[in-house]
């Protein structure tokens, strides 16, 4: 289908390692979002891209987390020196325009990557 895709679906790593999580948004969607969902909680915002630029990265927990979207389509979330507390499901969403001064649009989510840090 033409939905949001994320790879890998599961990632197990050891404490201290580096990981990359990939998101492929719906074709033509200019806005892309990353969220993190811990067990029993709702998703929490990490970062929002409008095109190639990160318009809001206020949700990134610390400087070990970084995300890029170099061509305005695929995005990669990068986590350095992983810690056990980083274990969660990382969700990516995309929307057509991301909202504006008078508008809003629907975010569609991918299946997520379940990250487990041992």
């Amino acid at each position, binding site marked *: 289908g033409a939905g949001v895709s994320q790879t890998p679906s599961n990632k197990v790593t050891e404490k201290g390692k580096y990981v990359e999580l990939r998101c492929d948004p719906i074709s033509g969607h200019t806005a892309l979002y990353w969220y993190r969902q811990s067990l029993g909680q709702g998703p929490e915002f990490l970062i929002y891209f409008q095109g190639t630029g990160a318009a809001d990265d206020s949700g990134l927990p610390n400087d070990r987390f970084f995300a890029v979207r170099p061509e305005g389509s695929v995005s990669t979330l990068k986590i350095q020196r992983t810690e056990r507390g980083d274990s969660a499901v990382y969700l990516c969403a995309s929307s057509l325009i991301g909202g504006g001064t008078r508008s*809003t649009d629907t975010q569609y989510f991918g299946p997520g990557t379940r990250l487990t840090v041992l």
Partner: protein
Amino acid sequence: EDKVVQSPLSLVVHEGDTVTLNCSYEVTNFRSLLWYKQEKKAPTFLFMLTSSGIEKKSGRLSSILDKKELSSILNITATQTGDSAIYLCAVFTYLYNQGGKLIFGQGTELSVKP
């Protein structure tokens, strides 16, 4: 601090029952309220509400927003086992110089028994 609160946190019903899920919010720069259904991992979109008092309906599901009370409800009639899932309420907030994001509640876990 912006927050979205859902109640109840969990609910067990029998097939055929009608359920009402609640969502209240305190956020700045409100643009819309969205409901998602989450089975396994991916939240799937149900409704987006922007105007107060206008019911949105899809089959056995319906939802309405009350901007005066800063709340929304999601109704499911004649529940089926396939309705078992976590239902997430989220508010989309937007700032001109930052863009938008969804603020989620903690979810209501619905279990429908045969």
